[in-house]
C-alpha cells in the first residue's frame, strides 16, 4: 500500500535522527520513502550539509550548483564542508566516519571510487534504486552517464548509491613539437610497449643537468595502473578480493616500469619528480595523466601538448577513476537532498567542469562542443577510452592496498630489493590484508 507524505507530516517528523527512523515513523519501509518521487514544495525550509572535496576551482563550480538549488528552494540553507583535494582518501573517509559517528549532520557525501566501497561497506549511504525508479530526473542522471562510470560506483550487489559527478583516466600526454623535431610520427592508436620504448629512447637526449627524458613516469598508484591493465593484469584479482601480485604478468609489468629508469634511462628517478612540471618545462617529451593537468597547461599558456592512447602489451585499455554524490543515511531531508543532487550533478555543472579543465564531466554530451574539443587536438580520446577501460581496483580497504603496494614498489624502484623480492613481499602482505577484509565483511 503506498502512502504519500504530506509536507506537514514531513516537517513534523523531521526531527528524527535518521532517514530510517523517519521512515519508521510512518510505518513505511525506507525504500517506499525513497520512492515517493515528488519534489518538495519550493517554500520548504531546512538545512543540508554536503561533505565535499576537490580543487579550488571546483569549489566555485559547486557553489554555483548550490545557487541554482537555492533559486528553487530559497529557504534551504546549505553548508558545503569543502576539503581541498584530500591527501590520501583514508584521512577523508575517517573524517566522514567521525562526522557520522558523532551525530553531526551529513546529508550529501562526495566520494571518489577509491572510497566508495568502504562507504558502502560501512552502511552509511542510502540505496537509490527505488528513488531512481520513481523520479524521471534521477533516472536521467543515470541514463546520461556512460554505463562504465555509473557501474563503477555501485555496491557489490549492484545497488546504486552514487550519481557520477566527474571522472578521469590515464592517457599519454606528449609534446608534438618534440616529436616532430625528433622525426617521429605521433603515437598510433594501437602502439605497443615496444613502440613506446623505441619512441622514448629516440626522444631521450643530453646528459646530466641538460638531459631531456622521453617519458616522465606518473609515479602514483593510479598513474602506474595502466601498465598493469595493458598487460592484462592488475594488483588485485578481477573481483578485487585477493592479491594478484604473484601473477607473472605483474612481474613483467613492474620490471618494465623499473627498466624505464634503471636500464633504458628514458625516465628520471621517480622520487621527487613532478611529471607535469617536467613535461611543461620541456624536460620530458611524454608523460601520463588524465585531464587534470590541462587547467595548469591553460593557465601557463602551455599549448604544445596532445594526447594519445596508452601503449598496449596484451590489450588496448587504460584505467579510470570516478567520483560521485550519495545521500547519507543520517539525513533528515531525503527529498531535499535528492533535489540538491539534481543540481550538483546537472549538465550545467558538467559544462563548468569542461571549462575548468581539471576533470572529465560525467556526461559525454557536455564534451560535444568546441570548448572541450579545441584543446587538446585529440580530446575525443578521453571519452573514446571508455570503450575498453577498467576502473582502478578500489576495494573497501583501498587505502591499505595502495599503501602496501606503493611501499614495496618504492623499494623496487630504489633498488633496495629486486622486482621479484619486492612483489613477493608485497603479495604476502597484501594477502593478509585482503583476508582481514574478507573477515571484516563477513562479520
Amino acid at each position, binding site marked *: 500500500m503506498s502512502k504519500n507524505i504530506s509536507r506537514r507530516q514531513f516537517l513534523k517528523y523531521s526531527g528524527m535522527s535518521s532517514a530510517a527512523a523517519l521512515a519508521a515513523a510512518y510505518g513505511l519501509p525506507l525504500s517506499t520513502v525513497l520512492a515517493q518521487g515528488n519534489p518538495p514544495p519550493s517554500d520548504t525550509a531546512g538545512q543540508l550539509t554536503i561533505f565535499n572535496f576537490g580543487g579550488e576551482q571546483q569549489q566555485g563550480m559547486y557553489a554555483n550548483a548550490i545557487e541554482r538549488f537555492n533559486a528553487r528552494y530559497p529557504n534551504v540553507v546549505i553548508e558545503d564542508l569543502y576539503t581541498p583535494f584530500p591527501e590520501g582518501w583514508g584521512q577523508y573517509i575517517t573524517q566522514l*566516519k567521525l562526522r557520522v559517528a558523532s551525530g553531526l549532520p551529513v546529508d550529501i557525501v562526495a566520494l571518489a571510487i577509491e572510497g566508495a566501497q568502504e562507504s558502502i561497506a560501512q552502511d552509511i549511504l542510502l540505496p537509490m534504486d527505488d528513488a531512481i525508479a520513481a523520479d524521471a530526473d534521477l533516472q536521467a542522471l543515470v541514463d546520461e552517464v556512460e554505463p562504465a562510470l555509473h557501474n563503477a560506483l555501485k555496491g557489490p550487489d549492484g545497488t546504486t548509491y552514487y550519481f557520477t559527478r566527474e571522472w578521469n583516466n590515464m592517457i599519454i600526454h606528449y609534446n608534438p613539437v618534440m616529436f616532430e623535431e625528433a622525426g617521429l610520427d605521433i603515437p598510433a592508436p594501437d602502439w605497443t610497449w615496444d613502440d613506446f620504448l623505441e619512441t622514448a629512447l629516440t626522444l631521450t637526449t643530453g646528459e*646530466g643537468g641538460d638531459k631531456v627524458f622521453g617519458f616522465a613516469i606518473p609515479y602514483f598508484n593510479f598513474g602506474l595502473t595502466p601498465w598493469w591493465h595493458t598487460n592484462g593484469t592488475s594488483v588485485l584479482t578481477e573481483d578485487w578480493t585477493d592479491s594478484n601480485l604473484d601473477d607473472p604478468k605483474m612481474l613483467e609489468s613492474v620490471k618494465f616500469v623499473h627498466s624505464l629508469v634503471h636500464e633504458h634511462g628514458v625516465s628520471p628517478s621517480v622520487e*621527487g619528480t613532478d611529471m607535469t612540471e617536467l613535461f611543461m618545462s620541456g624536460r620530458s617529451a611524454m608523460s601520463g595523466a588524465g585531464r587534470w593537468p590541462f587547467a595548469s597547461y591553460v593557465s601557463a599558456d602551455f599549448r604544445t601538448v596532445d594526447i594519445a592512447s596508452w601503449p598496449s602489451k596484451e590489450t588496448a585499455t587504460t584505467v579510470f577513476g570516478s567520483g560521485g554524490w550519495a545521500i547519507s543515511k543520517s539525513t533528515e531531508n531525503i527529498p531535499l537532498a535528492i533535489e540538491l543532487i539534481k543540481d550538483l550533478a546537472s549538465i550545467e555543472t558538467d559544462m563548468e567542469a569542461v571549462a575548468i579543465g581539471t576533470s572529465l564531466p560525467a556526461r559525454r554530451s557536455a564534451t560535444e562542443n568546441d570548448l572541450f574539443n579545441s584543446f587538446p587536438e585529440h580530446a575525443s580520446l578521453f571519452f573514446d577510452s571508455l570503450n575498453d577501460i577498467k576502473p582502478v581496483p578500489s576495494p573497501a580497504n583501498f587505502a*591499505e592496498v*595502495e599503501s602496501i603496494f606503493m611501499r614495496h614498489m618504492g623499494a623496487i624502484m*630504489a633498488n633496495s630489493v629486486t622486482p621479484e623480492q619486492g612483489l613477493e613481499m608485497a603479495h604476502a602482505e597484501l594477502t593478509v*590484508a585482503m583476508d582481514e577484509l574478507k573477515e571484516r565483511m563477513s562479520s
Partner: protein
Amino acid sequence: MPKSGLLPELTPKRREAMIGYLFILPTYIGFAVFILWPIIEATRISFMEFSIIGKSEYIGLENYAKILTDMRLRTSYLNTIVFTVFAVSFNAGIGLILAVLLNRRLPFLIRNLYRSIFFFPVLIAHTYIAVIWRFLYQQDTGVINYYLGLLGIDAIPWLSSAAWAMPAIIIMDVWKNTGFAMLVFLAGLQSIPATYYEAAQLDGANERQIFFKITIPMLSPTIFFILVIFMIGALQVFDSIIVLTAGGPGDATRSVVLYIYEQAFQKFDMGYASAVSMTLFAIILILTSLQFYISQRWVYYDE
C-alpha cells in the same frame, strides 16, 4: 560591608591561593581537555579493536602482544632513533657554533641580518620546506645534483636510495631547525655575566679554556633545554618525512609517528595505532626522565 553568609570566609592566604588557582584554571582546562583526556581515551582504545562506526570490543593485551612481533614497527623505531641522534646532535652542535660566532663583536646590522637569515627557516611550516627540498633533492633534475655535477660528483640518489633518504631528511631538518637552537644559545651566551670572562682572562686562560671551562658550564642549562626539546620533537618526526619520502623507499625513512598514522588512517586499526602511541609516549617519558636525572651531574645552575 555586611557579610553575605553565603560564601565561606577565606583567610587572606586562602584568598590569594584561590585567585592563583583561578588564574591557572584556563590552562588546566586546556590541558585536561586537549592533552589529558585524549591520552586517557587513547589508552582505553589501545585495549580495544576499535571501530569509528559500528561495534568496538575490548581485546585485552592483544594489540600490545602484536607490537612485540611487528618487524615494521621495529624498523620504524630504529629509523626514529637514528634520526633523533643525528638531528639533535647536528641541530644543537651547529646551533651552538653559529651562536658563538654571532656573539662576537659585530656591527648591529650584520648581527641582526645573519640572525634573521639563520632563523628564517624556523618560521616556515615543515610542509612547505619539504615540498621545496623534494625538488632540490630530485636525482636527475634537482638543483643540488646539478651543482654537484659541476664539481664532478656523481648524482646522489637522495630520495630514491634507502642509504641516502634518511641523511636527506636529517639535512633538511637541520637546515630548518638549527636557527632555533642558535637563537636560544645566543640568548644563553648573552646572559653569562661578563665578570666570569674578565676573571678568566686575568688568570691567563686562553680561548679554548674559556670556552670549555666557563662558556659550556654556564650554558649547560640552555644546552639541556635544547637537548630535551629537540629530542622530544625528533622522536615525533612526521611532517618532514611524509612530504619528502612518505616513509620510503620501502620503510627506509618510516618514523614511528608515520607508522601510527598508517595504522590509524590507512588500515583504520585505531586500537593498534593507539597501542603503538602508548609505547612512544612511554619511551619519550622514560628518555626525558633519564635526561633530567643525568642532568644533575652535568648541568650547572649559577645560583
